[in-house]
């Protein structure tokens, strides 16, 4: 046998969602295991050749989750998205009911395209961001109920959201521009 079967004594109690308490405090369980819940997850092995201690993905240990927490966990872990194609897009032109955009394949395996899309393809909260130069992400894939449930094809466009420029960021850019001008003798 190449892979180990789950050890006996591992409690797989899907309904309670309790944290698994093991006799071995080093033992960790990943959320990918059938029991929904959170766990410490060691990443990598500490290496004396570099100073960086492994960073864990962790949650606070609780003995009993709240009912709300259980509901949230179940909702989050019920489905997944498998991406078939991802583009970064930039809006080139906005028309009355549509917009034109350049699509750049994230994987780099396909050439750039220019597409015209209906504004209806956008989420209402993204419409306010639609203007030339706006960046968006377009993912086409399947949404699937875990573990073996219904599968639905999905197309999702989401506009990039970045916070506003800060005064210090602009000041830093001005300093760089001034330095460039001085360098060039302008």
């Amino acid at each position, binding site marked *: 046998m*190449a892979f180990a079967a789950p050890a006996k004594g591992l409690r797989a109690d899907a309904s309670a969602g309790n944290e698994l308490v093991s006799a071995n405090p080093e033992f960790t369980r990943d959320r990918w295991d059938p029991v929904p819940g959170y766990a410490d997850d060691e990443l990598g092995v500490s290496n004396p050749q*570099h100073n*960086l201690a492994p960073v864990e993905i962790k949650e606070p240990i609780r003995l009993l989750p709240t009912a709300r927490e259980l509901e949230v966990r179940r909702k989050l872990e019920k489905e997944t998205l498998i991406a078939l194609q991802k583009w970064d897009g930039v809006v080139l032109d906005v028309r009355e009911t549509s917009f034109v955009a350049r699509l750049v394949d994230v994987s780099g395996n396909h050439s750039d395209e220019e597409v015209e899309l209906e504004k209806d393809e956008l989420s209402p909260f993204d419409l306010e961001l639609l203007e030339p130069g706006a960046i968006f*992400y377009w993912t086409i*894939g399947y949404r699937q109920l875990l573990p073996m449930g219904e599968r639905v094809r999905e197309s*999702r466009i989401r506009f990039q959201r970045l916070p506003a420029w800060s005064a210090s*960021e602009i000041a830093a850019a001005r300093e760089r521009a001034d330095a460039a001008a001085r360098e060039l003798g302008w």
Partner: protein
Amino acid sequence: MAAPIIHSQSVVVVLLGSFNPRIVEPLWLSKHSLVPEEEASGAEREMIDRDFSRIVLPWAELVVFQERLQIDTREKITNAAQVRDLLVGILRILPHTPVTVASINHRALLRLDTEEQWHEVGHRLAPKDVWDGVLDKPGMLDFAMQGVRPDGLDGAIKVRIRPNPLVHPGLFINVNDEFSLPDQNDPEPAARAAGLLAKSWSEIEARADHICSTLLKRLVD
């Protein structure tokens, strides 16, 4: 034999530093244009004293401890650029926040075509002849490797592969790209971290894709 199928994917980013869990809450995120107002008002929020805050958005979970900030897509989205934007946005809004380490994890759960293929992966990663006469029916529980970073930053690239009973025959792969932020005396460490993350994000993602696809090709073919 058919190629493995991606059952689900997620991205988990952990930043180590010094954070204030009380600040990062849904309306703060929408006030700074990081999430739409509609998402912020519908978000689940949980706070425990000053030590821990969790926000559940439709596409990710944001957890803040005093010493770390963690974003987990929980298999909900596959365009990690949203995670990058949220992280970079938070760091830009709080430029003086100490940030010392960034750890970016690309995780995938894969279903292999046959159990034979699954066993073959285990045999290739962890040959069993070493265990003859030592253990009965030895099986690989967990496998991790580490490589040096190509960019000179202090840190490592780590890959972890394990069987996973959620899907059978299944494999879980985690590619962890971890580095410490240079120049700890920077007066705006979070701003600098934001720039570094924004600049290297695509490269990190491409590296994780390359590692996964190359390993799978070698293990499964």
